[in-house]
């Protein structure tokens, strides 16, 4: 068994090594996009059960964003929702025989963490401008500037380490147990891995949302809108 910390390079495109995690990510992306396209082809005013389930998912996400940020969910829905869906599918891809979840690789989790870090900056600047975003580091007073800068780095680092550690350890444990105890013994652990994957996806998405919210609230010139999700969705265009 290979070390989970190692990346398996399948082929090279120029100087770029294409690892198994990247290919799996592409597959997950294809499944998600094609599936989303297929599911959202015929949306009507009279929803089918499929549409109702999709709308329930989006409404739940909007409610979660609104309850966490207190702001309209539309600007964050795409990023946060995609993060959650991708991490969830990636985590659960370990259940497919022969597939290693991309989130069990450091690069993937680090890439997600980097995206969250950049999105915090992006949403912070968009809400309060560059000055507002920089000022958010001086909250509650300028003495906290070094600590805030360090915090903005370490919290992202802790995110991807948490995700990587949980998923990798799950894959590792299942691999060990499967190699030792045959076919049926890993099943409870795999079921536990399902729960772990869901929880980790939720935690990652919620933390990303909280970080973005803190940047937006600190840099914003005015108090955020505290309207609830159902009324906020009307602002979507």
């Amino acid at each position, binding site marked *: 068994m290979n070390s989970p910390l190692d990346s398996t390079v399948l082929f090279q495109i120029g100087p770029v090594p294409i690892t198994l995690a*990247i290919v799996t990510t592409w597959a997950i992306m294809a499944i998600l*996009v094609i599936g989303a396209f297929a599911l959202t082809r015929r949306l009507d005013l009279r929803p089918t059960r499929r*549409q109702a389930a999709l709308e329930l998912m989006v409404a739940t996400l909007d409610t979660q964003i609104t309850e966490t940020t207190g702001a309209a969910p539309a600007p964050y829905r795409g990023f946060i929702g995609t*993060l959650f869906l991708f991490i969830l599918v990636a985590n659960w891809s370990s259940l497919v025989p022969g597939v290693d979840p991309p989130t069990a*690789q*450091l690069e993937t989790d680090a*890439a997600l963490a980097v995206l969250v870090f950049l999105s915090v900056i992006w949403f912070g600047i968009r809400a309060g401008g560059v000055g507002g975003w920089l000022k958010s580091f001086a909250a509650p007073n300028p003495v906290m500037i070094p600590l805030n800068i360090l915090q903005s780095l370490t919290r992202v680092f802790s995110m991807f380490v948490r995700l990587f550690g949980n998923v990798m350890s799950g894959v590792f444990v299942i691999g060990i147990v499967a190699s030792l105890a045959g076919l049926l013994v890993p099943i409870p652990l795999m079921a536990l891995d399902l729960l772990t994957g869901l929880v980790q996806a939720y935690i990652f998405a919620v933390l990303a949302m909280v970080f973005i919210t803190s940047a937006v609230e600190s840099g914003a010139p005015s108090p955020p809108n505290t309207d609830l999700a159902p009324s906020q969705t009307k602002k*979507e265009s």
Partner: protein
Amino acid sequence: MTLDWWGLGLQAINVLILVWLLSRVFWRPVAGAITRRQEAAQALLEEGKTAQAKANAALADIAAARTGIAAERDAILAEAKTAADKVAKATLKDAQTKADSLIAAARTAIDRDRNTARKENATRATELSVEIAARLLDRFNTPSVQATFLAQLVEAIADMSASDRAALIASADGTTIVTATDTEDAESAKIERAIKDALGGTPSVRLVTDPSLIAGLELRSGHFVLHNSWRADLKAILKEVENAG
């Protein structure tokens, strides 16, 4: 342990692309469907409110119209009542006038009938009185009364003019002496003689009986009657009473 920076970058790009793609094909379409349904529901609500407002306005119009109809009905009823009262008063007045006329006419008729009845009663009372008197007098038809009537007749003949007496004597069919009761021959002869003596000459005299005289003697010829009886007296009284009434 090494970090594959190419892999990190590629995965970041992959996730970014996924975010973009899912935003286009999943999040926005589903959120748009929710928004469209909310807008449709809102539009339906607004339409319902508009319809409700229109219905309320129509209801208010109907209520106003109904109030107007009620007022108009009251006015028509009041007008009809006034007209009916006027007609009733006129009718009542006309009826009162007619009733007064009828009452006056009835009173006049009653007075007339009463006068007529009173006259008739008076006439009948008079006739009855005369009848009673006749019956009473009939009981007093005695020879002395007869003798008195004979004396009065003779006196009446004596009071007649000579020409009248000559006419009686010359009467072709003779002179009739009417008595109330049958008389005996001697009495008859006495009466004839007394009358012949009063008339003078030789008149043709015959004696007849007429009980309706009650009592008395009368002298009759073809064109002359000399009344001298209680019947004649009673007739004279009756005539006087009738003329007085």
